[in-house]
Structures are given as structure tokens and as C-alpha cells.
């Protein structure tokens, strides 16, 4: 979604107005946190990553006036912040992660369809989990997802479909057990 020229939110961010940051948090904070959680698997790490995005935004706000796609920028910055957070966590805990990024915890749901869905989602490879989170949890369009991941919108749609197919298959297998 390209931002309209002269978007007051962008102008407010570029001018460093605090209320613009508050509006942006209200609009995108939930989606950013959910995607960060899908990437990092921990609320604390997810919050750190989202905070890093906003701090980076405040520091580099002079370049925001010419920004064309605010959401794509935010979620791209979030990916970088999540990767840095994951690297910090690996360095601090000295424990290897099974995937490039950790799988999220199931949120304490022990049984039932919701818990099965959450476990199946957590078991997906990180890139599949990421695209589902960008689409479902953040509500990005395929064009925006394409801009975030550096791929074409068609590829983004195909990957999303593969992710859903894998998730469906995983749910079918767990139901059979």
C-alpha cells in the first residue's frame, strides 16, 4: 500500500511529533508484535524487536518524508530487528536454535483444536511461519509482503498457499494420531 503524498502521519513522523508515533503504534503495533512473536517465539524478545523498530524510526525520521510504503518499511525493519534479537539471544544463551529463528511457544494451550493449530503453526519452517504471520496476523497485502521479503507478489501468494497447505497437512496428520 503506497502512502498518499502528503500523508499527515508520515509528515508527523518526519517532524518527530510524538503523537504521530503514538498513532503509528496504535495502527501497526499489534501487527508488528504478532509478527515478531511468530519470528522469535517469545513475548519479551518480540517486544524488544518492535521497540527497536520504533527507536530506529525516531532516529532516522528525516528520511521518512520521501517514504513510499510505510508498512513495508516497518515490517522490513522488524525482520532486521528480529534477526538481531535472535542473534543476541543465541550469543547470550549459547544454545543453538533448530531453525534460523525459534518456533513460538503454543501459549499454554494444552489441548483442543486451537492448541493443535498453534502447535502445527509453530512446527512450520520459519519462512512459512513468517509469511502466514505477515498475511494473517499483520494483515499485509501480497504486494506489501512482496516488498518486505524482496520477492514478487505472485511468489508471495504462492508461498502463502504452500504454507497453508503444509499447515493443513500437519493438522491432518496430528488429527490421525
Amino acid at each position, binding site marked *: 500500500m503506497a502512502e498518499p503524498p502528503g500523508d499527515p502521519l508520515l509528515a508527523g513522523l518526519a517532524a*518527530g511529533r*510524538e503523537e504521530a508515533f503514538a498513532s503509528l503504534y496504535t495502527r501497526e503495533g*499489534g501487527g508488528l508484535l504478532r509478527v515478531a512473536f511468530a519470528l522469535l517465539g517469545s513475548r519479551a524478545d518480540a517486544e524488544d524487536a518492535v*521497540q527497536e523498530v*520504533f527507536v530506529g524510526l525516531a*532516529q532516522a525520521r*528525516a528520511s521518512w518524508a520521501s517514504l513510499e510504503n510505510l508498512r513495508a518499511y516497518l515490517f522490513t525493519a522488524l525482520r532486521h530487528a528480529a534477526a538481531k534479537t535472535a542473534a543476541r539471544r543465541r550469543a547470550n544463551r549459547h544454545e543453538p536454535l533448530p531453525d534460523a529463528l525459534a518456533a513460538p511457544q503454543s501459549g499454554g494451550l494444552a489441548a483442543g483444536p486451537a492448541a493443535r493449530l498453534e502447535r502445527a503453526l509453530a512446527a512450520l519452517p520459519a519462512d512459512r511461519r513468517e509469511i502466514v504471520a505477515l498475511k*494473517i496476523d499483520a494483515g499485509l497485502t501480497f504486494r506489501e509482503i512482496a516488498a518486505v521479503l524482496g520477492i514478487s507478489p505472485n511468489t508471495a501468494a504462492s508461498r502463502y498457499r504452500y504454507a497453508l497447505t503444509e499447515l493443513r497437512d500437519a493438522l491432518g496428520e496430528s488429527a490421525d494420531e
Partner: protein
Amino acid sequence: MSDSELPPDLAALERQLAERPRIEPSPDFGARLLAASRAALGHRPPAVGAAGWRRWAAVAAAVLFGINLSMSVATDTDWHLLPGPEPEQVTATVNQLRELAPELPESELRRQALLARAGAALSPTIPLTPKWERIRTTKEPDRWDER
């Protein structure tokens, strides 16, 4: 890709994912994040306006320095014309011309001799060799019309 482009089972799964309970930001997280953003805004680099003001001030200082230097150079440059030809040189030239063209009257020989001597320095020569030490130390003359 919308729901309608997905097969029914995947579309149902998509809806199930969208309706599942998901984490939401806590109120204290929002406050913490905005406080961190506020702190980052407080340590912002100089605004563009201030940077522009400094640049123009530097340009103005450079222009004033250039004007001052060029005035100093102009003040210490000797703009006087070179002295005219010596009478002996003119006489010698007249004699040479007379040998070459004896039919010319004396007045024309003298005129040609003066022109020939002037041709050696036809335009006023300005010795552009200001003394840098003087430029650096000399004060501007109080009365310009005395030079």
C-alpha cells in the same frame, strides 16, 4: 490472493487462523515503547534548517574573505604605466628607418620611430606581482586619491 482463490479447505484454515486467539500488546509495553521513541527523538541530529543556516554562513564568510583578499591584492598592485621610450632610443630608431626609407620626411620618420618603440610595449603593462608580506601587513590607505 483472496479467500475465493483458495480451495475451500485452505480458505477455512485461513479463517481459523484469523480467528484464533493471538497475543496483543500490553498497555505498559505501549508506554515503554513510546518513552523509548521519545528519548530517541530527544537525541536527534541537528535539524535540516540549522544545518542549512550553518552552510550559508560558511558561504558568506568565504565570499567576504575572497572580497577582502582581492581588495588587498588590488591595493598593493602597481597600476602605473611603464615609462615612455628614451629619446636616445627614438633617435636610433629614426636613423635606422632613414636608412631603410630615405624618401620619408623627417616628421614621418619620427612618427614611425615612436610607433615602433611603442610597439615593444603597446599596452600598459601591469606588473601583477604583489608582495604577499605587504598584503598581509599593510593597512588600507586613508586617502585613496593620493596614489
